[in-house]
């Protein structure tokens, strides 16, 4: 990870000055937006396949159970491998992936028993694993930074502050040994605890220990005052690297295995028959979901991760019927949600309205005494904005949106009304009962329609030059005859009725 950051920084420094890069990254908005967008893009890409497989909620389950993987890896690292537990270790990633797979396996095991339905099986498996994780967190790793707030909504707002420092020049790493003049030595009682005596007791034995010995990176050495020359540093937020690597991994997997993922999603049976091992694809996908979930967990919390997996694909599904476009659209929607979500958290709704002003206005009008500074959860605001984009797609999608569906239905209803009237005229025209059946003023009664509806329909038909009215008698024009005839031919005598 560190090495990757180094390369990227060297690359960026060709285009921007170091001071500008540091200033850019130190801005909470920039880091939060970058990390949020990366989470949104990787979530949207994987979520597209989850949505099409009808397993959207699996991402919710996995985003919770990865906590178990994290905690177990943490304990193993501490007690078995004797390493210092570190939240960005590779073992946590392995643990998270294992937990994700375990969730899916357990769900399938419960489902296969034949005693429980699929959704309930998921609902049984993941609270079990999550509960174990919560208990382990509170009992075993109480000193770890995993508080409730972090689990709920994450810490994307402070992601900028958790950085790796990269030294460009003036780099002096310092190693302090006990015989270094700068070493701070202190005495520690070696047998006080075992004998239950105080250090003042005469039987107490002491050893000298060094409190500041160890390796110092250039940045740490400068901070601790061990070097005189200030190193030239770039501070790179860790979560950008983590999410960028995960996003690239996701992108790579989807580009390479696009055909296999598509086939095993659309028709797993054929995928199996052709030897593509849909089960392997399935678990591969679950591993990726787990990895992104654990990366996102830190930033947006386990509860909101699911939104980044589900909402953008659901919106994209309404906008296109091509899988590649659906992947692109859902990534864009996710990224847009993350970008505008940060602004919303600071009270700015898409540059249209300032929510602080709205609150102030409400206070002026009603004397509510609300706090006038709008400052809310960044991750929750990102979710809200993504949902807003979903609503836009849901309402205005040209093909499947609410508005176009309503318009289409209205047109269908109207054209059907036209056909009904044309058919009626066609049927009775020139018959003995024509004067009764085809009187314009009373025609509505034969259809049990309101007079207004009849008038409107006749007006439309006359405008289309299909019907004419003479002496209160409606009749088809030549054009109308052809139209009515065609309708009978195509709609009423259909050979393909086996549906």
């Amino acid at each position, binding site marked *: 990870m560190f090495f990757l950051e180094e390369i990227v920084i060297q690359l960026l420094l060709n285009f921007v000055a170091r001071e500008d890069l540091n200033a850019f990254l130190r801005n909470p908005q920039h880091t939060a937006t970058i990390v949020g967008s990366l989470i949104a893009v990787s979530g949207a890409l994987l979520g597209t396949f989850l949505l*099409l497989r*009808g397993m959207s909620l699996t991402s919710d389950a996995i985003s919770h159970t990865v906590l178990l993987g994290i905690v177990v890896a943490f304990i193993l690292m501490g007690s078995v491998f004797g390493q210092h537990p570190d939240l960005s270790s590779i073992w946590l990633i392995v643990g998270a992936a294992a937990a994700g797979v375990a969730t899916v396996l357990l769900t399938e095991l419960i489902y296969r028993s*034949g005693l429980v339905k699929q959704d309930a099986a998921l609902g049984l498996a993941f609270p079990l694993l999550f509960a174990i994780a919560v208990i382990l967190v509170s009992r075993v790793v109480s000193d770890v930074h995993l508080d409730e707030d972090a689990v709920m909504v994450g810490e994307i707002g402070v992601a900028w502050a958790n950085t790796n420092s990269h030294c460009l020049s003036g780099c002096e790493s310092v190693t302090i040994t006990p015989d270094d003049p700068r070493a701070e030595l202190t005495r520690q009682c070696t047998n006080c605890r075992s004998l239950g005596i105080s250090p003042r007791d005469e039987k107490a034995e002491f050893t000298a220990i060094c409190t500041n010995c160890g390796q110092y990176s250039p940045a740490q050495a400068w901070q601790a005052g061990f070097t005189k020359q200030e190193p030239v540093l770039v501070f790179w937020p860790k979560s950008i690297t983590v999410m960028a690597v995960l996003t690239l991994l996701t992108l790579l997997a989807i580009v*390479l*295995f*696009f*055909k*296999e993922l*598509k*086939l095993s*999603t*659309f*028709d797993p*049976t*054929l995928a*199996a*028959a*052709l*030897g*593509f091992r849909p089960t392997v694809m399935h678990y591969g996908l679950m591993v990726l979901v787990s990895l992104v979930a654990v990366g996102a967990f830190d930033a947006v919390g386990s509860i909101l991760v699911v939104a980044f997996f589900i909402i953008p694909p659901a919106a994209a*599904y309404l906008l*296109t*019927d*091509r*899988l590649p*476009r*659906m992947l692109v659209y859902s990534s864009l929607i996710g990224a847009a949600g993350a970008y505008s979500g940060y602004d919303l958290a600071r009270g700015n709704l898409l540059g249209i309205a300032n929510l602080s002003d709205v609150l102030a206005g409400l206070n002026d009008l009603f004397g509510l005494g609300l706090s006038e500074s709008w400052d809310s959860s960044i991750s929750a605001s990102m979710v809200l904005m993504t949902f807003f984009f979903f609503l836009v797609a849901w309402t205005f999608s040209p093909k499947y949106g609410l508005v176009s569906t309503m318009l289409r239905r209205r047109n269908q209803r109207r054209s059907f009304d036209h056909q009904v009237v044309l058919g009626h005229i066609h049927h009775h025209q020139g018959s003995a009962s024509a004067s009764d059946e085809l009187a314009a003023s009373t025609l509505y009664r034969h259809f049990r329609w309101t007079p207004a509806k009849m008038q409107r329909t006749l007006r439309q038909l006359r405008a289309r030059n299909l019907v004419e009215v003479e002496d209160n008698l409606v009749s088809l024009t030549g054009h109308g005859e052809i139209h009515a005839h065609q309708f009978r031919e195509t709609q009423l005598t259909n*050979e*393909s*009725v*086996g*549906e």
Partner: protein
Amino acid sequence: MTVRNGHDSNDNSTTALEIDDLTVAYNSKPAIWDIDLRVPEGVLMAVIGPNGAGKSTLIKAALKLIPRAAGTVQFYGQPYEQVRGLVGYVPQRGSVDWDFPTTVLDVVSMGLYGRLGWIRRPGQSERESAMHALEQVGMQEFADRQISQLSGGQQQRTFLARALVQDARIYLMDEPFAAVDAVTERAIIAILRELRARGKTVVVVHHDLQTAPEYFDWVTLLNVEIVASGPIAATFTPDNLRRTYGGRVAYLHEGQRIAGLEEE
């Protein structure tokens, strides 16, 4: 009637599909029981039996899509894994989500994925093969259509085109005639006959007893166990049918025309 008079002596012909002692069970209840079946190359065979007789199970187990409790299956003398390219499979139309965001041509191209192998993408030549298969089923003008806009019959023809594009030696089809319109049924049977004329072997799970003797030249009657299997003229007898359906055959005429026992 256009019944071909079977392959009465096929002792020296190749065996396309050979199944020995095949048993499949769902939760210890046998779905098919101790199946021994030999399908000679070049026949157009119907698998016929009542609901729950294990017709689809037989095909899926032959392709190892579901676990076998016992038995062996060989295509041209080899296990399925080694001859995947020789076997084309048409699943039931209802087994996939037709709202999936893709086009007819793309679904047909999926038949070529096996030949492409992992990672390699379909290109121009694959598109042309798929287009050719669509022409064969009379669907070329639907190539760019979103699949959710197809009628049931068109969906079935799309699936058939996807199998044709595989250019297999033996085809296994799960209920291709289920709930299709008359136009599609005629189109499908024309394609099946053309496949047979090109020397292919076709195994079809079939529901309609009335059309069976007209469409097929070979038949396997199945009700968990094999009741009978062989040339249709000798096998599709009232007696065998009664044994298959347990006396539920409502109407037998001239020992051939049977009607009215299936719900579809």
